[in-house]
């Protein structure tokens, strides 16, 4: 309790573990009784990794440095480790389905992407061990491996665009294709570009715990883990609802509008927070006569209003997204499409 992201009371954490294990059991048995593909095995590996690393949330020593050290095993080793396996697997699945490109090619890409994710991201945990009491050598390890961490995200972008341009069919669900391309691009921008911005120890010395961190967190989470979920929903929902392979053209049009509204709003949110962060660091941490935290915050309110306005734009996009499920129910498209 009372730790960032791990606020849940212990009893709730136990509940989370039970629910997650049930979920993994369900998925696991499904995979085992069906065709075991590379995609499904990677997905399962990512889910098991998620469960394993969450166990570190139960370890809360009195020593703050140890607490922080293993806290990052949940937070970092999730988003820059095992979750990338889940992200890669879902992206690969949707790309197989909507492009019809040979599974062999897609699986080779998937292996390489997750290989780079683990090789850079596991030791890349060190980019959180600069200034929390851990030894100095982490400055080198965290900077070097952190700087390589954008590689898997860049590969995902190449992967998605390559597969779509080599597509063997025009899938009727163009909204799902848009989400798949969008998540690849936005994950690269948010995690890769905004992550790289503050991953070197001398830079992080000034940016650590500032609005730059918040800017990066917003875009990375949306780009990688919100958008991949919306991608698979977009792909699966019409099938689950018996609408054939795609929602009606009208519903897709609304969904695409929602995509652009949410995504552009998130770009503006990120830029606003980045502006706030740059000014904050300048006024509070670099100036000859540094201002106090509170005085600094008062000087950067413009960026917070901008961020607020963009947040409203995002909300409208979200409402539109939900609305898209109720558009054009009557006119289901042809069920024959591949």
């Amino acid at each position, binding site marked *: *309790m*009372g*730790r*960032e992201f791990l*606020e849940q009371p212990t009893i709730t954490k136990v509940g989370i573990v039970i629910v997650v294990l049930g979920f993994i059991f369900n998925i696991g048995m499904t995979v085992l009784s069906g065709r075991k593909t*590379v995609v499904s095995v990677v997905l399962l590996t990512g889910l098991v990794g998620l469960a394993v690393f969450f166990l570190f949330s139960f370890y*809360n020593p*009195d*020593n*703050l*440095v*140890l*607490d*922080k*050290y293993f806290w990052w095993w949940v937070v970092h080793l999730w988003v820059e480790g095992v979750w990338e396996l889940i992200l890669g697997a879902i992206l690969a699945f949707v790309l197989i389905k909507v492009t019809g490109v040979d599974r*062999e*090619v897609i*699986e*080779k*890409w998937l*292996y*390489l992407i*997750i*290989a780079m994710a*683990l*090789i850079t991201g*596991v*030791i890349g*945990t060190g980019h959180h*061990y*600069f*200034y*929390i*009491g*851990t*030894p*100095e050598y*982490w*400055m080198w*390890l965290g900077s070097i491996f952190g700087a390589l961490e954008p590689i898997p995200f860049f590969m995902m972008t190449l992967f998605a665009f390559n597969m779509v341009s080599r597509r063997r069919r025009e899938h009727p669900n163009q909204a799902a294709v848009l989400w798949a391309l969008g998540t690849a691009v936005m994950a690269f921008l948010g995690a890769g570009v905004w992550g790289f911005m503050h991953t070197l120890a001398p830079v992080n*010395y*000034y940016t*650590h*715990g*500032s*609005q730059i*961190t*918040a800017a990066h967190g917003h875009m990375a989470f949306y780009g990688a883990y919100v958008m991949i979920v919306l991608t698979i929903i977009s792909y699966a929902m019409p099938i689950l609802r018996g609408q054939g392979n795609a929602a009606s053209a009208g519903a897709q049009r609304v969904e695409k509008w929602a995509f652009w509204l949410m995504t552009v709003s998130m770009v503006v949110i990120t830029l606003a927070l980045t502006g706030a962060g740059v000014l904050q660091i300048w006024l*509070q*941490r*670099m100036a000859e006569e*540094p*201002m*106090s*935290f*509170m005085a*600094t*915050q008062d000087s950067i309110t413009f960026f917070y209003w901008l961020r607020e306005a963009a947040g409203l734009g995002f909300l409208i996009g979200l409402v539109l997204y939900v609305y898209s499920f109720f558009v054009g129910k009557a006119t289901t498209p042809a069920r024959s499409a591949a």
Partner: protein
Amino acid sequence: MSERFTKGMARNIYVGGGVFSLLLLLSLTFHTVSALPERDHRENLTPQVALGKKVWEDNDCIGCHTLLGEGAYFAPELGNVYQRFGDSTETIAMCIRSRPAEGIPGRRSMPQFNLSDEELNAISEFLKWTSEINTNDWPPNIEG
């Protein structure tokens, strides 16, 4: 991708690279944990400091503040508040005790937590202990 680079090779890089990285992290962790006593001055980690950490967590201080750069970015960094308040645990306790219950209009203001004296002393000692961790010279200046 070229035909000579097979899926099997890609899989081997994934499995080999992943296992190697995890083993490397484990051994670095082993080393870090054994090197930490030098840096975290745990000999000063009294039961009072431990209680202070519990007070910190039970009142969700991280919901607004940052501590050594992690938290909510909404209220000041507290990893060095002991130094900012002139090396004084009394000032920290007084500051927490004296928050107006109705807040300060037009400004972000900290709630009144109604902590007991024991809790106030503990949280102040916890923040003092935290400020004495060797953090490679972070934050850059006293403003945090």
